């Protein structure tokens, strides 16, 4: 057969294939490319002509103000709880769909994902006679397979036409929460396939002539538990984008299309140039980090994320090969495009917060993964709880980049250990006291403790890992809208600290129950109950592990009626150890819990966590140790055992000499017990992961990947990863119990025979 075909034939063939493509699924050509598109002809002409720098600066300022105004609109009018805390963004994109700028307060990652669906619309709908892209159109999207962080975020995207020409795109995205998934709240850990994830909107037109199409809106409302929320926020996003459009048109009227198109493109190119300049300042070489995730949110299993960052001149390569394979029937997978959005966020949050918030920061970075790994999952797998690997992606930079950047003479931002990286918040669902169906999550997700810094302790409960927003919600508002009642104040989680010369910023306790609902429940989605999640830096320790505590089978409101002093103080450790409420079933559990019914007055307790520690604990200033004691962040036992400080427990006066001696002695003790590295490795390193741990990922060689599938350990080449299929945890439990029953039966038979 002749494989040389003429140009005309090739074009004809391409057209035939395009016309007859049965399903326009996520397009790998779009989804696997995170770099800037080459300049369009218009962009090239404008930039070659040259722009007035002063004007560019001014236009950029005006765009920023317009984005900020639209952000404020959504923030104040949005119905979703996430909108109230700032879990949203507004953005502006080039005509080709490159993200140029986002509102100064927004969630970076959200905007970083809208450019994939916009590129999809440009590629597939622009020239499709049944769809088209016209002035007044608006497109909606939520399926992360077409771009996005996760399906609980919904976007409104609008083309902006000026004098008949498409000059840019505008968008607004909110973390809506409810989306009709198998569990309420939009992030179902119980999803076992993509069909359990709720509505799955590929980018489609939902607005014509600047008006929502009521038939489509009704279809979407009909697909979720909170139809009111669905409608309200679609309206809010549309109007915010329309306001943004008016502002941009005013800029166009005043400065002309060249100024706008040129500014957007220049902004992207300048950012990319600055990135390359900063990379060149770093030393050449490779630094590495491993992250371990200990739960699929259905069962405990150890998944490794392996990351090697290589710098060579102005190239920066992130190599994630050796990472755990994807799960076929667990929702903690992410596709590569979402993962890159998390990387972009993490870079801007943790390494260079002063850079413009655009996708251009990621553009010069090369990313290598194993296909079908947990950070590059493909196919039918669910990814509703992609937050787990995504949050790891946000913080994955901190350790290896600090090992590069510590030597760089000019520091663009502080040296900081990893922030706490779990979504430590209650996700809820059920009937409100007003009789409405709802499902969403609490604002505590925004209270992750900051990592310790090279010059100071971390700040407590500072922000989420994915943004600079600060508000962890007002519980009074939450209590008006939902049956959730918070028991006690948000106490800092005493002793749950990442130790170091500087300690991590701490998290706080959340103690919740429900009242006045006919049906209510909670879920939680965190790892780190067995293997700590937030890593320390340069000898600092990680955070501890955290658990979910429950007191079931009681009604705290009845108990308080009987005896108002039954609980002296709502403090998790005291409640669990002293068990003041009689007859309650107290349990300590993994932080991953699928949706569970909470009867009136039953108690659920979790903590926000601590960021990682920095430096050697023996170098912590004893005065800071005393300060932690005074602020009741820590018990005396830890001040003595961990920090090795000698002091008077009553006056908190430090004996400096005795402390120095104790610490010197302890340094000698370390030298005595430490083994030379080579000898240690001979004794320590095993050829395979421990047999009794369901382990996922590479061990000593990142081309060989371990997994446990159908309950059996397998080893596969990294180039041919197969997703792991997990057994139903209830079946596993039944098998265990049946085994025990068999054993007991046999013993009984023996006894009978003997008798």
């Amino acid at each position, binding site marked *: 057969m002749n494989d040389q075909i003429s140009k005309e034939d090739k074009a004809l063939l391409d057209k035939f294939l395009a016309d007859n493509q049965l399903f326009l699924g996520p397009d790998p050509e779009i989804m696997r490319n995170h770099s800037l598109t080459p300049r369009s002809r218009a962009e090239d002409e404008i930039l070659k002509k040259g722009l007035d720098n002063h004007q560019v600066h001014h236009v950029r300022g005006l765009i920023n103000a317009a984005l900020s105004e639209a952000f404020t609109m959504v923030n104040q009018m949005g119905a979703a709880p996430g909108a109230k805390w700032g879990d949203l963004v507004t953005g502006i994109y080039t005509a080709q769909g490159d993200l140029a700028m986002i509102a100064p307060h927004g969630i970076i990652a959200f905007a970083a994902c809208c450019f994939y669906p916009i590129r999809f619309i440009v590629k597939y709908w622009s020239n499709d006679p049944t769809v088209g892209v016209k002035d007044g159109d608006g497109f909606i999207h939520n399926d992360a397979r077409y771009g996005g962080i996760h399906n609980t975020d919904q976007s409104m995207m609008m083309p902006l036409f000026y004098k008949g020409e498409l000059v840019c795109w505008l968008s607004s995205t909110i973390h809506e929460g409810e989306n009709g998934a198998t569990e309420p709240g939009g992030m179902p850990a119980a999803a076992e396939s993509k069909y359990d994830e709720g509505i799955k909107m590929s980018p489609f037109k939902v607005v014509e002539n600047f008006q929502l199409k009521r038939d489509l809106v009704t279809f979407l409302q009909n697909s979720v538990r909170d139809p009111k929320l669905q409608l309200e926020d679609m309206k809010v996003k549309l109007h915010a984008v329309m306001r943004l459009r008016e502002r941009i048109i005013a800029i166009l009227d005043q400065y002309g299309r060249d100024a706008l198109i040129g500014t957007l493109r220049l902004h992207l190119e300048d950012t990319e140039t600055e990135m390359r300049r900063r990379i060149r300042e770093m030393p050449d070489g490779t630094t590495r980090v491993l992250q371990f995730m200990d739960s699929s949110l259905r069962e405990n299993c150890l998944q490794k994320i392996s990351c090697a960052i290589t710098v060579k001149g102005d190239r920066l390569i992130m190599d994630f090969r050796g990472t755990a394979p994807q799960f076929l029937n667990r929702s903690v997978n992410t596709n590569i495009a979402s993962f890159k959005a998390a990387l972009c966020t993490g870079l801007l949050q943790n390494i260079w917060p002063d850079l413009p918030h655009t996708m251009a920061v990621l553009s010069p970075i090369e990313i290598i993964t194993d296909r079908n790994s947990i950070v590059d999952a493909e196919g039918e797998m669910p990814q509703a709880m992609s937050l787990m690997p995504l949050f790891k992606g946000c913080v994955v930079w901190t350790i290896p980049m600090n090992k590069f950047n510590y030597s760089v003479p000019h520091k663009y931002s*502080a040296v900081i250990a990893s922030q706490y990286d779990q979504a430590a918040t209650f996700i809820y669902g059920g009937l409100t006291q007003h009789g409405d169906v709802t499902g969403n999550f609490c604002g505590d997700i925004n209270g992750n403790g900051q990592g310790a810094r090279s010059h100071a302790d971390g700040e407590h409960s500072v922000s989420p890992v994915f943004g600079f927003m600060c508000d962890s919600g007002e519980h009074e508002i939450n209590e008006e809208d939902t049956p959730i009642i918070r028991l006690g104040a948000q106490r800092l989680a005493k002793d749950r600290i990442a130790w170091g010369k500087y300690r991590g910023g701490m998290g706080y306790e959340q103690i919740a129950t429900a009242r006045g609902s006919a049906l209510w429940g909670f879920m939680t989605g965190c790892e780190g109950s067995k293997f700590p999640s937030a890593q320390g830096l340069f000898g600092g320790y990680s955070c501890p592990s955290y658990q979910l505590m429950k007191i079931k089978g009681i009604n705290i409101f009845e108990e308080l009626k009987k005896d108002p002093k039954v609980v002296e103080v709502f403090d998790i450790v005291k409640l669990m150890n002293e068990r003041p409420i009689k007859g309650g079933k107290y349990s300590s559990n993994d932080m991953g819990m699928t949706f569970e019914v909470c009867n009136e007055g039953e108690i659920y307790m979790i903590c926000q966590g601590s960021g990682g520690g920095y430096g050697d604990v023996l170098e912590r200033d004893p005065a800071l140790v005393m300060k932690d004691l005074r602020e009741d962040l820590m018990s005396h*036992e830890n001040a003595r055992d961990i920090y090795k400080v000698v002091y008077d427990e009553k006056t908190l006066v430090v004996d400096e000499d005795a402390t120095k001696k104790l610490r010197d002695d302890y340094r000698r003790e370390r030298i005595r017990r430490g083994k030379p590295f080579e000898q240690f490795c001979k004794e320590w390193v095993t050829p395979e992961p421990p047999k009794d741990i369901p382990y996922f990922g590479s061990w000593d060689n990142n081309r060989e990947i371990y997994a446990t599938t159908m309950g059996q350990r397998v080893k596969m080449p990294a180039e041919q990863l197969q997703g792991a299929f997990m057994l139903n945890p209830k079946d596993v439990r039944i098998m265990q119990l049946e085994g025990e029953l068999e054993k007991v039966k046999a013993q009984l038979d023996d006894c009978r025979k003997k008798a």
Partner: protein
Amino acid sequence: MKVLITEYLRINLDTEQWECRRCGHVHGSARDNYKRGLLVYDRDPREIHKPLLDTRLYERTYSPDPAWCRILEYYCASCGTMVEAEYLPPGHPPLYDIELDIDALKLQWKDRKEVVEPTVGPDLALEKVKNNRALHADHAHGHKH
């Protein structure tokens, strides 16, 4: 010329050796893994992250599970400073975490001035959070009127 690499490590470009920043001890060749010059101790994580709940009542107590997680503590062999705390599953090979191109490093520092104490960069992430808090406080204030 010495280049600071971490809080506790520096590279002497003239001798091409890793050195301890606290005591000057020479750990080994800068072209090799610095860990090879350190002492290592396998720490039970329950000693660092102590159980806060009664271990007779509960299996999960805020301590990491020692069957899943160990802490490898790396000490300077001369002064006993803890250079790294590496959390690994039992038996996992320690990570070769810093592997720099020494020739490129020499070239890079040819025209740079030696840095003896690292500068502290601005905590921009925290500043942004604080700005947002101020903004939000303004909004909350606005609602009341």
